[in-house]
């Protein structure tokens, strides 16, 4: 197990290095200039000389190899550079927002798991019944309805029935847990519904597949209690693909709530992504992509380790 874990951990570093190089190069071919956006997008009288001066000041006139070298030298020290828009360190920009995105992702995951596990299991166990059809309609609906649209409906619902929305601005869970929950429950519901539908569908398929395996039939033939057959022999094996889906969805939520965060005016990294793209803030954008990639890589690592824990065959493989 230790050898397996070490091998997986060592793979993380070349992956992240490749991502860093790729992101730097790809972003440099994207059209757009932050200085022009900063100084001329809202109009105003700005001479070319002023624009050049600003480019020089921000280091954008440096040769590409120098910019790349500076960027790569900074990475091991956690220095992601400075946002070209706010001129604050990228790590500070991301750091002040990632906690909120992380919290929202956790809350959405909890909601999704709480909804998906009973729905997925019941749907599989009562396959072909009315209950199964109802659950399938609910879950297909969850996959079909975009989260941000559901979010807009939830906002309209709150305005219509309560006459108000949660206060703007991030309230820390440690300072005021109730207000924090009041702020995040709506976006968590809008994201969690889709998330739970994906997980429930995956769990249903996995359980159905596992329940048709020979060893389940053998267990039943041996007279093992049905509940024990399902929980011990069925569910444990059905969890493997489900855990993968939960892990990938969780990692996706960390940087992927681009529209949902905008709809709910949440100051997370999804909204920061939008802002950095609109402004062509390359330093911030590459910092964000790298951060999200790191999250993906580590969540994948955790999923792999969980896999090994759930299925001994995996850890014994060379």
């Amino acid at each position, binding site marked *: 197990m230790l050898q397996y874990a070490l091998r997986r951990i060592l793979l993380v570093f070349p992956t992240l290095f490749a991502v860093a190089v790729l992101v730097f190069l790809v972003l440099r071919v*994207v*059209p*757009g*200039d*932050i200085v*022009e*956006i*900063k*100084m*001329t*997008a*809202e*109009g*105003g*009288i*700005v*001479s*070319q*000389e*002023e624009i050049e*001066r*600003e480019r020089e*000041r921000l280091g954008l006139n440096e040769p590409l190899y120098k910019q790349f070298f500076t960027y790569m030298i900074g990475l091991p020290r956690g220095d992601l550079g400075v946002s070209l*828009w*706010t*001129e*604050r360190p990228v790590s500070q*920009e991301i750091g*002040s*927002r990632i906690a909120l995105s992380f919290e929202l992702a956790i809350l959405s995951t909890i909601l999704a798991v709480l909804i998906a596990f009973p729905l997925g299991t019941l749907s599989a166990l009562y396959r072909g019944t009315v209950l199964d059809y109802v659950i399938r309609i609910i879950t297909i609906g969850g996959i079909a309805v975009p989260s941000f649209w559901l979010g807009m409906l939830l*906002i309209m619902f*709150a*305005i219509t029935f309560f*006459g*108000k*929305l*949660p*206060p*703007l*601005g*991030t309230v820390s869970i440690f300072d005021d847990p109730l207000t924090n929950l009041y702020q995040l429950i709506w976006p968590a519901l809008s994201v969690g519904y889709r998330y739970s539908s994906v997980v429930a569908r995956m769990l249903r398929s996995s359980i159905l597949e596992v329940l048709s395996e020979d060893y389940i039939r053998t267990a039943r033939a041996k007279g093992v209690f049905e509940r024990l057959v399902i929980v011990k022999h069925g569910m444990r094996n059905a969890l493997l693909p489900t855990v993968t889906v939960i892990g990938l969805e969780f990692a996706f939520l960390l940087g992927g709530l681009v529209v949902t965060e*905008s*709809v709910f*005016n949440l*100051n997370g990294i999804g*909204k*920061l992504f939008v*802002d950095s*793209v*609109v*402004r*062509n803030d390359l330093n911030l954008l590459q910092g964000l992509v790298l951060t999200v990639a790191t999250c993906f890589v580590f969540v994948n690592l955790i999923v792999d380790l969980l896999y090994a824990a759930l299925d001994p065959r995996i850890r014994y493989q060379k």
Partner: protein
Amino acid sequence: MRLFLKAAVLSATILGTVAATNAYAGAHSSCPKQGGTLVYGVKAEPPMFDLHGNNSYAVQHYVAQHYSTLLTFDWENFPNMEGDLAESWSVSDDGLTFTFNLHKGVKFHDGTPMTSADVKASYERIQNPPEGVASPRKALLADISGIETPDDHTVIFKLSAPNAFMEAGFASPFNAIYSKKDLDADPKFPIKNVNGTGPYKLKEYKPGEAWITERYEDFHHDDNCLDGTIGYKISGIAEPMLGGQIMAEWRGTAPAERVTIKEGLGDKVNLVGPHGWMTLFLVSLNSETEAFKDKRVRQALQMCLDRNNGLKQLAKITFTSETPAGLTLPGSPYAMSPEDLATVTGYRPDGDSEKKKAMAMLKEAGYEGLKFTYSNRAVAHPYDHMAIWMMSEWKKCGMNPEMISNPTATFVTIRNEGGFDATIDWAPSFLPDPSLMLFKFISDDQTGSNYSNYIDRELDDLYNAQKGELDFDKRKALSIELEKKVLNDSHILPVAFLGRVLALDSRIKGFTIAPSHILNNTYRGIWLDE
């Protein structure tokens, strides 16, 4: 000399000031009610806090409340001016010397006394920005040849040439007065820090989220009525207003938003406006495009836009004004009269007949069925709505425009690099003064923001002549001559000025809407009727 003096006085009277004599200090009444927190939304994020160094309205909405300027505007009688830091001021007969007497006892938020040295240091920073400091409007102060500070409370600006715009320039919301002490320590200090003499002090800034302020007790006027303000970064206006998350947004609402907000909140919200908004949207035709080298083709594009009928419909769906306009804000002192404008190419009343003439001109020029690309900024209001209207108008004239929409970053690059045949463009101003409103339309090598990229020395001469002309009537005549020439040449096709309508919580009192979203953002005089 008498004629010159008369001209100077008339010019200043038009601007609402009394030249060569003492003016008055801020004439706002004190607060009917004190207290409460004004919560507002801003749809953009400030790139920095330095008012000298950028054009962003977000900086104005968040930061302007922390600073003072030498002069400001009397918002109820705009564009009349009144003193802010200046208790009084005077202009010499030749228009070359401006003398300001500053309020005594004014202190920066950190307790440092404000003196004439701070004014000098601030204006010198704008004129000659040190390394690492941006100053996009320094050209507007190019005529200042020297700044003298005979004592702590007197500042004298010497000009190298008469400049009719200069007095209003001292009321520019961008020309904030910084502390010399801060600038001496670090010229870049205002980029990331705030220390002004304005009505509210910065309490906390949460990047991407909120800008929180508190009342400055030692403010040199008595109209900072609130306990503080909180500005939140928002994505849209309607939902935060309806959900009680914000009380105001200061840029402007689109018609659909207004309807939603009014229907949802009824008497709890006031729609303020429509008010002329000094941002002109226009189409720039690329002077390098072969077809557009022919004046008849450019004029045909101009004539096909039936502004008299089309703008009325456009104003119902986006925040454009329904009044046809040339290059200066309709109704402002230097604008052409509607009758005069109706004689200009593209503004004549019979739209159908103009279209027929335009088609004949295209045929004559050999460009029947003209194909060209139109570069659009992929933003719904007002860009998409205006584009759809113009596409339809040009198609009615048998042309084949192809609209290419891009997000801001790409759009700006295309516009700046000239990668278009026609592009949407805009000219925002903070004062209806020809030196500001017409600067964009002179030769490209003079302005830097003329995306048609033409060179026309006749326009440059007219511009410089109006700038140095202190007689109002003569200046207006020169300004109109320049405007008519630009419209007739038709490298520039004005579409519309904007119509500004704000949705404000009915508890907000004491606010007067200004003709630009970058004006009147210090929240002075605002009080809450709670």
